[in-house]
């Protein structure tokens, strides 16, 4: 029976994929993409995922997990697999798979879609599941600890520095996305700002009025936030209030930086925790709603399968389809960041090793599906509209007339009245040059929701989508700043012991300020960059993320080889090799390409030349020295990522060679086997007689 279902899935999937690949001239329906995706996920989960779990990882349900062995009712708690799935998915799902595919759509819908599907099933899902199992076998150790213990101190330091840097880049680029969504939009700004007092109210409610009633508090918060979406429209219509929330990007960046700093030093219960509850609910709810709406609406894809920008001269970011589609998609296919979540928190909840496939492989499949929905939302727009929203003024010209002329000359017709009508429908003054992906995704989501659930509310749907993205971007921003602070305190503690104490206030202030200054700098430069900033920052983040994935896969490969499973090590070695190639080529091009559109140093040289020759207009000349410095700094960072990547790979290779030659190796940190005696935990909690209650 299973075999028949498998064959059927394979046939349907193949037909849908062939349909996508061969449909070149006429527009294709999104249903083809959804069908292909679902079939590929089902096949991947049922066959490849199951095989990797059973044969390569030797998942053993008879082995007691740390949740069972250390069950303390707090962080080690054996939990029903669907609940852990929900936790884990909520933790890994961030703005990355929404932004990356939106940007990668400049190559057409096909390359991004294919990599999201292939990359997740063969790479990302395997990475997440493998790291999850390895950490579960090691009492929930973090990726950094596993790298240090299994590979050696070099791997450990590389993982630590890599994680801290990627965190800073991630926060900077996400901050930039939010700023670009809010700039000169009183409605968006008022709504996003309102989420801060709402979160504080919810925090006070959950702390003092009704402690621990999380559902109740979150429901209150979600209701207030929805009210804020509507209230933003009211502010926007009010001439006086509108002026109070209509900011350009520089002051908005200042607000975001100030917010990040305050959120990092305030107690978590007041702002961070309640915002995170809100964002989790909005995230799960909106993703589910979007899936339903896309299925009901099944829109036509208007973007061509491939655009001329595969040649490397795309307006959103420079670089050829290879390797930059892989660097740009990043989180939707393989995300190194997931390895940080899959090691640490989640393993402490797993009741049985048998659940690892659902939680590790399955959550990443769902994450990849979110990326597929994002690419659908980006490509159902008229390509001309998509480019008009996503291209910076530095590329297409700062007036509307110049922008539409440039974009139409690429073969993607768009007119000023069309953009004005669209902006009016979405309740915005203009949609030109709103780089970063969030506004174009919001327009896509608004048209999906609007066409499915009633067109009258397009502007409300648009701002709902902006609010949804901003809420969980800001919750990544404040949680990330806090984690960055802890990591930095850990490092500083080696220099001067009191700085390592996480509750010592001077250390809290110092380390928070350093972390915020780190990402604040990149955010500031992104904001003053006339090309929009995202074109530089996102590829840099992508390179860092894929480097982190390569570190995680190196740890996994090293452990597989050490434990005598070299025969099967290709399961992680394959994705590792691919990521190493992609990341190295991308980093190399960023460093040495003579094309100023791609190479960072070439761009710095070109800009310096223009500045010296006096050919830059006054505003551009004023910021040019900072941009030149930043491009050189980014080049150094890229070089550092490349060095870390290859140090870890060579360290792993050294380890594998020692194993093959029979030389001594670092001892395995795997916890000894103990037989599982646990009854599978249920979905509901069994209350002891006469206590607690709801």
């Amino acid at each position, binding site marked *: 029976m299973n075999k028949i279902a498998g064959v059927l899935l394979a046939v349907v999937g193949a037909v849908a994929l062939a349909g996508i690949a061969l449909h070149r001239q006429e527009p294709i329906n999104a249903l083809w993409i959804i069908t292909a995706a679902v079939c590929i996920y089902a096949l991947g989960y049922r066959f490849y995922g199951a095989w990797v779990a059973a044969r390569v990882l030797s998942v053993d349900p008879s082995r007691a997990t740390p949740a069972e062995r250390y*069950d*303390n*009712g*707090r*962080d080690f*708690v054996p*939990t*029903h697999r*669907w*609940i852990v799935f*929900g*936790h884990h998915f*909520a*933790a890994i*799902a*961030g703005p*990355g798979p929404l932004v990356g595919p939106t940007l990668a759509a400049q190559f057409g819908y096909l390359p991004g879609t294919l990599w999201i599907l292939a990359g997740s099933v063969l790479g990302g899902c395997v990475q997440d599941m493998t790291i999850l199992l390895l950490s579960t076998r090691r009492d929930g150790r973090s990726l950094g600890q596993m790298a240090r213990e299994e590979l050696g101190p070099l791997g450990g330091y590389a993982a630590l520095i890599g994680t801290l840097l990627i965190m800073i880049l*991630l926060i900077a680029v*996400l901050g930039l996305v939010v700023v670009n969504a809010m700039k000169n939009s009183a409605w968006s700004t008022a709504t996003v700002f309102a989420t801060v007092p709402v979160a504080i109210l919810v925090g006070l409610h*959950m*702390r003092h009025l009704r*402690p*621990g009633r*999380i*559902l*109740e508090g*979150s429901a209150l918060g979600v209701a207030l936030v929805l009210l804020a979406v509507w209230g933003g429209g009211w502010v926007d219509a009010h001439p006086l209030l509108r002026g109070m929330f209509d900011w350009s990007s520089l002051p908005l960046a200042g607000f975001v930086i100030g917010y990040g700093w305050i959120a990092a030093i305030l107690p*978590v*219960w007041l702002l*961070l*925790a309640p915002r*995170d*509850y809100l964002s*989790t*609910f909005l995230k799960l709810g909106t993703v589910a709603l979007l899936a339903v709406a896309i299925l009901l609406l099944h829109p036509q894809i208007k973007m061509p399968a491939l655009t001329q920008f595969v040649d490397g001269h795309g307006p959103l970011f420079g670089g050829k389809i290879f390797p930059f589609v892989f660097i740009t998609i*990043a*989180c939707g296919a393989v995300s190194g*960041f*997931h390895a940080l*979540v899959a090691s*640490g*928190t989640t393993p402490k909840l797993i009741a049985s090793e048998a659940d690892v496939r659902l939680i590790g492989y399955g959550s990443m499949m769902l994450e990849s599906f979110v990326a597929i929905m994002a690419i659908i939302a980006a490509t159902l727009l008229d390509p001309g509209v998509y480019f008009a929203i996503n291209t910076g003024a530095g590329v297409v010209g700062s007036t509307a007339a110049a922008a539409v002329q440039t974009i139409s000359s690429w073969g993607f017709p768009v007119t000023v009245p069309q953009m004005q009508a669209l902006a009016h429908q979405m309740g915005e003054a203009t949609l030109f040059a709103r780089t970063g992906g969030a506004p174009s995704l919001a327009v896509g989501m608004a048209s999906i929701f609007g066409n499915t659930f009633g067109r009258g509310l397009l502007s409300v749907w648009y701002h709902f989508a902006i609010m949804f993205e901003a809420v969980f971007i800001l919750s*990544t921003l404040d*949680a*990330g700043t*806090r*984690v960055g602070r*802890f990591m930095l305190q850990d490092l500083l503690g080696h220099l001067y012991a009191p700085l390592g104490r996480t509750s010592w206030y001077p250390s809290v202030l110092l380390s928070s300020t350093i972390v915020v200054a780190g990402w604040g700098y990149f955010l500031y430069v992104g904001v003053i960059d006339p090309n929009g900033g995202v074109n530089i920052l996102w590829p840099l*983040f992508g390179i860092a*993320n894929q480097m982190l994935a390569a570190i995680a896969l190196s740890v996994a490969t090293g452990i597989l080889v050490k434990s005598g499973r070299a025969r099967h090590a290709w399961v992680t070695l394959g994705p590792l090799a691919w990521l190493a190639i992609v990341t190295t080529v991308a980093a190399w091009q960023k460093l040495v390409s003579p094309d100023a559109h791609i190479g960072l140093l070439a761009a710095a040289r070109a800009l310096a030349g223009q500045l010296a020759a006096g050919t830059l207009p006054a505003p551009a000349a004023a910021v040019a020295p900072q941009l030149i410095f930043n491009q050189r700094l980014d080049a150094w960072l890229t070089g550092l990522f490349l060095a870390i990547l290859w140090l870890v790979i060579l360290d792993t290779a050294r380890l594998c060679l020692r194993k093959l030659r029979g030389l001594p190796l670092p001892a395995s940190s795997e916890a000894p086997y103990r037989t599982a005696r646990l009854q599978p935990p249920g*979905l*509901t*909690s*069994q*209350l*002891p007689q006469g*206590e*607690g*209650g*709801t």
Partner: protein
Amino acid sequence: MSLAGMPRALRRTVATAMSWLRAVSGDDAYDRYLTHHARAHQGPPLSRPAFYREREERKWSGITRCC
């Protein structure tokens, strides 16, 4: 919430969905802790506010969110 009057199967589905939501959000974490405490420990358990205070500090000191 009144579930009376719904068909039995629907009622069960709603109840399952609610308990999943409570568990995923951490709404029932204290109930689970009490169950654990009654089974495994002597002495009085933490109070509800104290439990959540400790839980929040722990939860937000590690990497719980992603890109």
